């Protein structure tokens, strides 16, 4: 450990030529060559499937492109069309509703679950159980709940019947469809989100709790006065991750309602898919993707600012 601290990301990198204290100067040229070989496959993947398509997507958004003929540059036409496209604005609104329901319920429930686990048990088995829904595919989750929420035979409506409610067309009713899909995905992500928060809880210094206990503070008070403030940076990161994921809702909609009834579940990503692969309007679909991209970037920035993620209260 005498020569270099291995955890420091060797800030001397970049263009700096061989530092004087380098103990093995004769490997330099070979080192660079070896490094390039090591990075090469990942670089190919990065350029071909991340960098190039990002630029191409941006370019396509300024074109008229139907996949068959080559893309014609059309300036801002796609964006102008967006402004007047009511289905697009509706899709933004629908997605916003979905994100609002999904994130508020999920964050609240996950925080509760994380604190419960933290205060009650160390069991890894239990943490494994709550993670289970996250490990199965969106498609499986969607079909499973589609069946359980079926109007005629679904067990949820059966149980509603036991307590005297009329059956609900969870996926088929315009006002129910989005809340239903939001709750299905809460079920899938609850455990995962709770474990992210749980990781944050474990980082809080135990001394703080002991001090509070000495002062005779109750559970609730400790939660609001100590846990929550100390957890804020973690909550901020969790919110950024989950909100960004939530905006990209697609699989559940594609498998169950396919945008319907009417346009009640035509979320942004489904609309993009619809424009690109059902109407072969790749230019327009790309323009919507650009808008979605900008929204996500804005959401991330705004959240980090609002929740002051970079400032920890624990010093």
């Amino acid at each position: 450990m005498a020569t270099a601290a291995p955890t420091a990301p060797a800030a001397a990198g970049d263009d700096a030529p061989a530092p004087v204290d380098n103990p093995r100067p004769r490997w330099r040229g070979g080192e660079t060559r070896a490094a390039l070989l090591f990075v090469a496959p990942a670089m190919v993947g990065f350029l071909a499937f991340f960098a190039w398509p990002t630029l191409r997507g941006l370019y396509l958004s300024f074109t008229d492109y139907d996949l068959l003929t080559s893309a014609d540059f059309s300036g801002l036409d796609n964006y102008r069309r967006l402004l007047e496209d009511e289905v697009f604005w509706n899709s933004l609104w629908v997605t916003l509703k979905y994100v609002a329901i999904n994130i508020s319920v999920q964050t609240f429930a996950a925080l509760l679950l994380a604190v419960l686990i933290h205060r009650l048990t160390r069991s890894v088995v239990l943490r494994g159980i709550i993670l289970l829904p996250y490990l199965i595919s969106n498609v499986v989750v969607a079909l499973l709940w589609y069946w359980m929420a079926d109007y005629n035979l679904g067990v949820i409506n059966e149980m509603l019947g036991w307590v005297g409610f009329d059956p609900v067309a969870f996926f088929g009713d315009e006002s129910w469809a989005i809340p239903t899909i939001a709750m299905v995905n809460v079920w899938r992500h609850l455990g995962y989100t709770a474990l992210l928060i749980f990781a944050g809880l474990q980082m809080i210094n135990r001394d703080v709790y002991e001090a509070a206990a000495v002062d005779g503070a109750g559970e609730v008070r400790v939660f609001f006065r100590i846990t929550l403030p100390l957890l804020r940076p973690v909550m901020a990161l969790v919110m950024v991750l989950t909100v960004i994921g939530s905006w990209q809702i697609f699989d559940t909609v594609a498998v169950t309602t396919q945008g319907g009834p009417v346009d009640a579940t035509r979320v942004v990503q489904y609309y993009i898919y619809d424009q690109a692969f059902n109407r072969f309007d790749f230019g327009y679909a790309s323009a919507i993707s650009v808008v979605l991209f900008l929204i996500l970037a804005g959401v991330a920035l705004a959240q980090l600012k609002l929740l002051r993620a970079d400032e920890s209260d624990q010093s």
Partner: protein
Amino acid sequence: MRTTSRPRGSGAVRRWNVGRLLAWVALFVIIVITLAPFLWMARTALSNNRVLFTEPGSWLPVDFTWGPFERVLGSASTEEAQAEGGSGASLRFWAYLRNSVIVSTLITLGQVFFSAMAAYAFARLRWPGRDKVFFVFVTALMVPPVFTMLPNFVLIKNLGLLNTYPGIIAPFFFMTPFAVFFLRQFFLGISREVEEAAMIDGAGYFRIFFRVILPMSSAPLATLGVLTFINAWNEYFWPQLVGQEESVRVLTVALSAFHSSTPQTGPDWAGLMAATLIAAVPTMLLFLVFGRRIVNSIQFTGVR
């Protein structure tokens, strides 16, 4: 006075406490809500679809039968399938299962190996521009998949790789920003001394990578491998764009196709649930074996 939650939170800390009891009840309710749908899936998958409606609220299979599995795996005859309320359409979930295994395995092998190579160069080697390149790699985490998927589709189509394994695998095969980031983090922590001892023995970079770095990182490599496999297994959007054809269809795509082809009146719920169970079981088995690793890895992603 000790509020540090002991393992199991034994009641001895604060004997009979209403709050604590309520907390356990709440936790129990959440666990029931988490697990009940899985039970329902299994119960339906073992029911006779034709009489499913007679007991819509029973937690046991209705008229127990293996029929739903037999018909989605293609081993039941059309008559047998229809007798139990299937549509009689041919379903080949063995083939889709095979496709999912092939696609997910190749993605996992490629992604973990190439990402490990890159992570080694980023963590252990010094070369001009290293940190800048790494920064650009990680920026790709911010780009939403749908943004790159449309142009990627155009690329795969132009390469003539639609409905082929390489087409389904390609975008995930070489790297993901997360995998590189994840492994670099671990490689940074390896002591230089081991590496330098190997160098003094005359080992080159490739030898060090294969003989020192990879063996020393088997735990994070396994964790990443399992996570990658599960993600690849569950991916729907991309294979559904480029792999619709039966010969390369993976389970998620097949499930969705099965669902849209089953009749609106009297759908084959039992068959559908049997098929979803087939899609869910492999990741569950992986989880049984690697559960602790996966749970702990979330700690890592949480603090990134």
